C-alpha cells in the first residue's frame, strides 16, 4: 500500500474488510445492509450528528461527559444516570484501554473479573467483545445521542461493530489517536487504518446515513499550543472529508487564558472552513468541541469545581458547539457517576448563565486569532508542500521533520522538540520552537512573550518553568511561578 490522501474505491475497502471483521469472533455479526436499516430508524433526538447541527444553528453549547464501564447493564445505568441526573445533552461510550490496544483477550478477562468483583475493573466499555447485539442493547436502553470515545490506533473493527450497532458518532483519527496514544505504531499505519474508518463512515453516508466524526483535539492534553493542535485537527478533517465524511467536529483543549481560548475556537472554525473549502470539501458540516482543562487537576474537589467552571465559561463564551466535561474527581482517577454528574451540572449552570451574554471580539481576542491563524497556516502549508500536495504523505514527512510536533507525546514518531510554556498572562506559547516552520516574526513573538515572563519572574525560561506550568493548575494557579 502507498499512503495517499485519496478516497478509497469500494474495491480497496472491501478487499481488506473481511480481514478486519475476522480480528475477533464478534466481527462476524456485522451486516452492513441491516445496519443501514437500523440507522434509518434512529430518532433525531438520539442522533448525535443531527443534534450537533441543531445546536450549531441555535448557538447552543452542548454538554458531554466521558464514561464507560465493563458490563452492559452497568454501562446503561451509568449513561442514563448522566443523562437524567447530570442533564448531559450528549453521551459517550468511553472504550477501555485493552480494546484500544486491540487486546480483546485481556478485555474479555477484564469483563470476567469485573463480573466476579462486582465492580468495573476496566476503565471503559469493551464494545468489540460485547459485539453488535451488546452495543444495540446500550443504544436502545439509553435515552440520548451516543458517541464512541476511545484512543485506538487501529479502530477498524471497533468502528465496524459500534457503527453497525447504531452509534452515530465516532471519535479519533490517524494522527490524534496515534501520537498521544501509541509508542511505536507508524503514522503510515494509523493514517491508513483511519482512512478505513473514515471510508466506512463515507459509505454509510453514501447510503444516506449521517455519522459524526471527531478527531481528538487536545492531543496530549498538556500545554499544547492552539496552532499545533489546530494543524492536526484540520489535517484530520481533510483526511476524513476525502473519504466521504460529511459531519465533522474539530476540537481544542482549554489552555486557560480566556482570550486565547476564545480565539482558539474562533480561529479553528474559520481556518477549517477555509481549508476544507479550498481543498475541495465544501459540503461538510463543521462543528467545534471545547475540552475542559485536560492537564493535572487539584485534588480538592471544591478547587476542581473552580477549574471545571472556568472551562465551562470559556466554552460558553467561545460558543463552542459542545464541551467535554471534567469531574471533581479528576485528580483521583476515574470518577464515580455522581462526580461525573456534578461536573456536568456545574458546567450546565455556567453555560446557561452565559448563554445570553455575547462576547464580542475584543482587540485582545482578535490579535490571538491572528497569531493562531498565522502559525497554523505556516504549519499546514509546509505539510502540504512536504507531501507534494498530499496531506497524508505530507503528515508523515512533517512529523519526521518536526514540522508537525506534539509536546509530551509517547510516540516515537514525533520529534518532541517543541517545548511549550505559559507567557506572563497565562497564554500557552513556545519557549522552544523546535522545527516548527514559523516565520521570523512569529518566532520573535514567542521569544518576546517568554522573555517578558522570565523577566517578571527573575529567572530564565527552562525545563523547570515547563514543569512548574504543568503542575500549576493542580496547585491552584495558572502560571507556574517560582516562590
Amino acid at each position: 500500500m502507498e499512503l495517499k490522501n485519496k478516497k478509497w474505491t469500494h474495491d480497496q475497502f472491501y478487499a481488506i474488510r473481511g480481514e478486519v471483521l475476522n480480528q475477533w469472533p464478534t466481527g462476524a455479526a456485522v451486516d452492513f445492509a441491516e445496519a443501514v436499516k437500523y440507522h434509518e430508524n434512529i430518532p433525531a433526538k438520539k442522533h448525535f450528528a443531527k443534534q450537533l447541527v441543531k445546536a450549531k444553528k441555535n448557538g447552543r453549547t452542548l454538554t458531554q461527559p466521558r464514561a464507560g464501564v465493563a458490563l452492559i447493564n452497568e454501562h446503561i445505568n451509568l449513561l442514563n444516570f448522566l443523562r437524567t441526573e447530570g442533564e448531559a445533552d450528549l453521551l459517550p461510550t468511553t472504550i477501555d484501554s485493552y480494546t484500544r490496544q486491540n487486546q480483546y483477550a485481556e478485555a474479555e478477562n477484564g469483563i470476567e473479573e469485573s463480573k466476579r468483583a462486582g465492580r468495573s475493573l476496566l476503565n471503559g466499555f469493551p464494545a468489540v467483545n460485547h459485539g453488535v447485539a451488546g452495543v444495540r442493547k446500550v443504544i436502545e436502553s439509553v435515552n440520548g445521542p451516543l458517541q464512541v470515545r476511545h484512543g485506538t490506533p487501529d479502530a477498524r473493527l471497533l468502528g465496524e461493530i459500534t457503527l453497525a450497532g447504531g452509534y452515530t458518532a465516532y471519535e479519533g483519527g490517524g494522527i490524534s489517536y496515534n501520537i498521544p496514544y501509541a509508542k511505536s505504531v507508524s503514522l503510515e499505519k494509523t493514517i491508513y487504518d483511519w482512512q478505513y474508518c473514515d471510508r466506512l463512515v463515507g459509505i454509510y453516508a453514501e447510503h444516506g446515513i449521517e455519522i459524526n466524526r471527531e478527531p481528538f483535539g487536545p492531543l496530549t492534553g498538556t500545554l499544547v499550543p492552539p496552532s499545533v493542535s489546530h494543524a492536526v485537527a484540520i489535517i484530520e478533517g481533510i483526511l476524513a472529508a476525502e473519504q466521504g465524511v460529511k459531519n465533522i467536529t474539530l476540537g481544542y483543549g482549554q489552555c486557560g487564558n480566556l482570550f486565547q481560548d476564545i480565539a482558539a475556537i474562533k480561529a479553528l472554525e474559520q481556518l477549517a472552513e477555509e481549508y476544507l473549502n479550498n481543498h475541495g470539501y465544501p459540503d461538510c458540516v463543521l462543528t467545534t468541541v471545547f475540552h475542559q482543562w485536560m492537564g493535572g487537576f487539584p485534588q480538592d474537589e471544591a478547587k476542581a469545581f473552580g477549574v471545571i467552571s472556568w472551562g465551562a465559561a470559556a466554552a460558553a463564551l467561545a460558543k463552542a458547539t459542545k464541551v467535554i466535561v471534567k469531574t471533581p474527581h479528576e485528580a483521583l482517577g476515574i470518577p464515580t457517576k455522581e462526580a461525573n454528574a456534578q461536573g456536568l451540572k456545574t458546567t450546565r449552570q455556567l453555560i446557561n448563565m452565559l448563554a445570553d451574554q455575547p462576547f464580542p471580539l475584543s482587540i485582545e481576542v482578535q490579535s490571538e486569532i491572528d497569531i493562531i491563524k498565522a502559525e497554523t497556516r505556516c504549519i499546514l502549508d509546509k505539510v502540504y508542500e512536504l507531501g507534494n500536495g498530499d496531506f497524508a504523505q505530507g503528515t508523515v514527512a512533517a512529523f519526521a521533520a518536526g514540522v508537525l510536533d506534539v509536546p509530551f507525546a509517547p510516540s516515537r514518531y514525533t520529534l518532541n522538540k517543541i517545548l511549550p510554556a505559559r507567557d506572563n498572562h497565562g497564554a500557552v506559547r513556545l519557549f522552544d520552537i523546535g522545527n516548527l516552520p514559523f516565520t521570523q516574526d512569529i518566532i520573535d513573538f514567542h521569544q518576546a512573550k517568554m522573555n517578558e515572563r522570565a523577566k517578571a519572574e527573575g529567572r530564565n525560561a527552562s525545563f523547570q518553568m515547563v514543569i512548574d506550568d504543568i503542575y500549576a493548575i493542580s496547585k491552584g494557579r495558572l502560571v507556574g511561578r517560582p516562590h
Partner: protein
Amino acid sequence: MMQQERTKVILGVIGADCHAVGNKILEHVITAAGYEVVNLGVLVPQEDFVNAAIETDAKAILVASLYGHGEIDCRGLRGRCEEAGIGDILLYVGGNLVVGKTDFHEVKEKFLEMGYNRVYEPGVLLERVIEDLQQDLQERGLSRD
C-alpha cells in the same frame, strides 16, 4: 560523578497505559537527582521491566499506572522478578491504580501485599519519591554515599 557510578533505575508506564507526561517529568527529576534512568516509556509489559532490570543491573523499578487498570496489570511483577533471579529489587508503584475513587489505604495495602515496596497515591510529590529511593537504597547498602 562519572556516569558508570550512577545507580540505575528502570522507569515505565505499565500495561496498555499511554500517559506520557508524568513519565517524562519523572525521568527529568530522577536524572537530576543523580540516578541513571532507563526509561521504557509507556505501554510497557511486565517482562520488559524485568528484562531491562537484568540487562542494566538496575536497583529499582518504578512502575506507573495512570489509567485505572493497575490492579490487573501490576499483579505478579514481584513473582516474575523472583523467577528471573532479581527477587530483592526495589519495586515502586504509583498513580491512579484502580478504577473509581477508593480509600487509598486499602489500595496501598493491596499493592504492598502484591510485593511492592512503596505505593504512591496520585499527586505525590516527586521529591518524596526521591527521598524514599535514597533511604531504601541506603538501608540495603546500595547507597552512593
